[in-house]
């Protein structure tokens, strides 16, 4: 049980401030879940739209397609314009002012750590929270596990957890997933503030304190701050390098911090998202789609914006009053960001960070990204169930921006292969139909968006890489960006399929962490090294040393130029000296070969001794604990 000063008066001030804002005078924002992908109204609308489209094609296919082209171009223009505005706004933003809080005045804090099939990450979570600078008597860390995940539950029970840790087992009931688990755990939260950390997260030690100070500063200003988001950074977006610039590896040859081209791109994307896009939204007081982890909330705010209990799934031992997150939405955090804004609260990006681990392979990237993009699509579809009401509740501009930010991301990734495919087909075939599809102004706008827009997005990424001093990522950005964008588009199409076939959603769709990884090139190099070492350990047959023949003595004194009788003798003298030098060189070469052969036994002995030492090290226990698993070869 955590103790500490009661900060409820402070957080209630935040809630009261929200109630006083203009947002509360608008229609009440009705939160709906993503239990159904499309509402009845949306299905009817979609059917009508498709019917009209087909009719239009039959009447005049060219003008119908042109209308579609116009809609796509308008959307692309708005989406890109929003991106540039946000990036520019982020250059103007300042971190919110904090008010210093003495340690004895710090309130109770609850951290939620949802985990599924991550028995290997218990130690990581504990180590991360042990590093956090917060009074232990006011800290409550809830390991939010699934009852059916026996391996993780047992591992947690076996682990020597600190006193401020508690295990919360979510009952086995659909829908499965992180948001439902967090909702269930919320009823056990005793803190005034709540934050979610994923299993692999490593928040900087002062994060909780800074969050409290930021909230206190907002209270003083009378600002209805409902959430503060720390920026996330992928620790493994760049390898660890030594003083000489070499990549550091463990004793088995694996990178200490595994880095791939995927982690590079993911790292830059996080930089753009958390240091340019979200701060821009926050600066402009627009809804912020939250980042899924390291979001800090006053518990009262979560209760204030919670779903109605009747829409929450029934769980044994759960009163359904703490439904802060949508259990059916795989990006429940993004949706919560919209709900917070619609209820009159603001979200700020504050000066703290959390290190995460990026996925390393393209397949894992598609897996993860398809989940995020699917969640964005779900969020948008829920928002569009009652577009007029929701727009009035959020504010028309906030509604449009939020929709563009989440739904626009999904749509842009979905449309990218179509637009690029059309461009390539035109360049190759010079199709007159495509030419007719793009009359003058549309053509120019399309080219501008395609070329200029993509170049601008690349520029933003390059700027982020240079700003973060991720210089090694630049070459990846320049040469592999089309491939990366293709990957994201594949993820978007996979997400669409998952939405279309509800049996696939929602699920944990988990991203594995704590893996030791080597690229194929690195693995091949390690295999070669192992082979070479095995050759060195094979016994070598040594030939007996050979004795050199004695050098014959010279017949008499060497003639000199002075002793010679004339030019002919001089030539003979020169020739004789040259012969002597050649003979000396041959003798030296023979001596070197003889030395090399007699040294072979020595080298074999050294190699044998080295192999024996390596064998001894493998058998011996490690000298220190290695909870991160970098050197211990933890795999799943």
């Amino acid at each position, binding site marked *: 049980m955590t103790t500490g000063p009661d900060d409820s008066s402070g957080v209630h001030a935040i809630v009261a401030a929200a109630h006083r804002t203009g947002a509360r005078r608008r229609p009440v924002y009705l939160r709906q879940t993503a239990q159904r992908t499309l509402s009845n109204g949306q299905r009817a609308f979609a059917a009508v739209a498709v019917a009209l489209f087909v009719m239009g094609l039959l009447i005049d296919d060219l003008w119908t397609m042109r209308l579609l082209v116009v809609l796509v171009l308008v959307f692309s223009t708005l989406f890109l314009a929003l991106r540039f505005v946000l990036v520019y706004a982020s250059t103007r933003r300042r971190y919110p002012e904090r008010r210093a809080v003495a340690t004895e005045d710090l309130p109770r804090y609850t951290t939620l750590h949802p985990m599924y099939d991550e028995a290997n990450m218990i130690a990581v979570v504990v180590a991360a929270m042990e590093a956090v600078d917060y009074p232990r008597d006011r800290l409550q860390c809830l390991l939010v596990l699934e009852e059916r995940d026996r391996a993780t539950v047992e591992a947690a029970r076996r682990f020597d957890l600190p006193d401020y840790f508690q295990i919360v087992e979510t009952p086995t009931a659909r829908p499965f997933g992180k948001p439902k688990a967090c909702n269930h755990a919320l009823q056990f939260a005793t803190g005034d503030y709540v934050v979610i950390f994923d299993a692999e997260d490593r928040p900087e030690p002062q994060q909780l304190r800074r969050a409290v100070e930021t909230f206190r500063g907002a209270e003083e200003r009378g600002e209805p701050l409902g959430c503060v988001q720390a920026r996330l950074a992928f620790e493994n977006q760049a390898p660890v*390098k030594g003083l000489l*610039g070499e990549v550091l590896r463990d004793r088995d040859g694996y990178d200490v911090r595994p880095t791939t081209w995927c982690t590079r791109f993911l790292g830059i994307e996080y930089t753009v998202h958390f240091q340019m896009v979200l701060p821009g939204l926050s600066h402009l007081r627009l809804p912020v789609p939250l980042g899924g982890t390291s979001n800090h909330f006053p518990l009262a705010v979560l209760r204030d914006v919670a779903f109605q209990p009747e829409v929450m799934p029934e769980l044994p031992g759960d009163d359904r009053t703490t439904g802060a997150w949508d259990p059916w939405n795989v990006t429940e955090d993004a949706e919560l960001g919209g709900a917070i804004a619609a209820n009159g609260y603001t979200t700020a990006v504050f000066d703290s960070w959390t290190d995460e681990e990026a996925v390393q392979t393209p397949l894992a990237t598609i897996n993860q990204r398809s989940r995020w993009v699917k969640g964005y699509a779900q969020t948008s579809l829920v928002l569009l169930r009652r577009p007029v009401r929701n727009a009035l509740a959020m504010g028309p501009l906030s509604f449009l921006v939020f929709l563009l930010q989440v739904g626009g991301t999904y749509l842009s990734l979905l449309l990218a292969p179509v637009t690029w495919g059309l461009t390539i087909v035109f*360049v190759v075939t010079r199709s007159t139909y495509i030419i007719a599809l793009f009359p*003058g102004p549309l053509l*120019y706008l399309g080219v501008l968006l395609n070329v200029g827009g993509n170049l601008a997005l690349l520029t933003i990424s390059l*700027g982020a890489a240079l700003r973060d001093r991720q*210089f*090694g990522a630049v070459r990846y950005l320049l040469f592999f960006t089309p491939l990366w964008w293709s990957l994201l588009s594949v993820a978007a199409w996979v997400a669409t399929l998952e939405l279309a076939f509800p049996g696939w959603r929602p699920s944990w769709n988990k991203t594995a962490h704590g893996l030791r990884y080597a690229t194929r090139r690195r693995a091949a190099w390690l295999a070669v090294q192992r082979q070479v070492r095995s050759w060195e350990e094979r016994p070598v047959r040594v030939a007996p040393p050979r004795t050199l023949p004695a050098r014959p003595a010279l017949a008499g004194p060497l003639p000199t130029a002075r002793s010679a009788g004339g030019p002919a003798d001089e030539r003979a003298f020169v020739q004789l000296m040259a012969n002597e030098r050649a003979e000396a060189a041959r003798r030296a070469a023979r001596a070197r070969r003889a030395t090399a052969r007699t040294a072979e036994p020595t080298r074999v002995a050294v190699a044998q001794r080295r192999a024996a030492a390596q064998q001894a090290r493998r058998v011996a226990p490690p000298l220190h604990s290695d909870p991160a698993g970098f050197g211990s070869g933890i795999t799943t």
Partner: protein
Amino acid sequence: MMRSTRADSATLGALAVLCSAGAYWFFLEHGTILGYEDTLSHLLIGRRIVVGQQTGFGQVGGIWLPLPHLLIATLAWIDPLYSSGLAGSLFSMLAYVGTVVALYGVVLVATGDRLGGWVAAAVYGLSASALYLQTTPMGEPLMYLGIVTAILAVLLWHRTERHRWLMVAAMICMLLVLVRYEAWVFSLALWVVVGHVCVAKKYRFMSGDLAGQAYLLVFGTYLALGVGLWLLWDLVIFGDPLAWLHGSYTSFDQTSELSLSQVGNLRLSLETYAYGVRATLGLPVAVLGVVGLLWMLWREGLSPVFTAFLATLAPSAFLVYGLYSGAQPMRVEEIDGDLYNLRMAVVMLLPVALFTGYAVASIPRAHWSARTLRAVATSLVVVLAGAGLQTAAATEGSGVVVAREASQAFAAYAEQRQVGSFIEDHTSGRVLVQSFGNEWIVFPIQRRVVYEGSSDQWRHGLKSPAGPRADIDVVVMRVTPGDTDAPEQHLRHSPAMKHYDVVLATDHFLVWQRGGGAR
């Protein structure tokens, strides 16, 4: 310091605006704004994008780089701005003002000395050649602005290590390579300077944090993108990415039939260019630049700042090569007896201004004697730089060699202007005329013109001008022996001309009108 430099920039800007406007008024009075044939070509290309029988970005063509024309297109649809040339001159004038301020900034960042910056700005800003060139709708002033601002951005990056300046420089170069071909060579030289900065700062290229590699790649990528986009454009429009190099109407194509004494003769090429520099900059100013270069080399050695300044010589080196290869002709009175393309030498003003500014900036300020020396040096420079203005005023502009060349060119096209005026005043309807070589005819009647860039309309016009697919009312033919144009070659003796009568015949032109009376 910041406030004083901002005040300096504002003051310089204001003075540059006054000089620019004054120069424009002066040369307008003397009728030399639209002297060069190229001025008309630039205006025509810009206007065709938005006004004419066939509009669109395809009218940019594939020979001249597009950026100046895209800018001109924003104003050229306004008839008075087009016919006066202001649709293009305005951008040159703005570029001039920007170049003056940027030169001040470059020397200030390089040396920390405001006076040196003022001197550099004065050397360029008071140059009669620069003042004339900025009144014309040519691409050179825009290129000068790009060169100086790119160097400024690189120096700011060098001093502050803030990556945004490098990205600014890269993007400037990406646009700059779409202005003039000399800028390609300059941008490559600046890329080398970026590498030099990285080496000097011990950035790593193949190991460690790879900062040097990243900076080089970023800069090189934008540079390559600019060039790549132009090659792609030529590929799309002409089916040949190198159409700008060896296609029709290129420099090579135009000069291939001329016998130029500089071709294949490096010494003569250098000599020609040197005469050009002397004529446009003036010998004293040119000498100042050489002294400044040697002084800077002696003081700084091969520092990144020096190599950045040195990069401004790249366009001149490219132009000398152009003389040598025959791609870019230039004629001077001392060798060829006449004037042609002397404006190519004006780019030397940039390194001269920078090196002179550096030399003045490096004079110490500590002692009163040194301050006196600075004042004397500054005064000398300003007087020498402004000497051309006196000459210009005294000779009513003809003392400015580039203006004199423009006047001569203007006088040479009197007949074309007469033909153009006649067609404008006495005919109506669509006009079939080859634009290349007949710019003065096309200029006043541009809106009605079907020319070699009108694709299908041109082809149909050359086959059957009176037919419904061409519907040409007036046909213009250049009948100069040995220099006829496409309408003359295709239609002069064609039965398709039976619908047309000659309404005007000059020494070199025939004007036909459909169903018109003979004159």
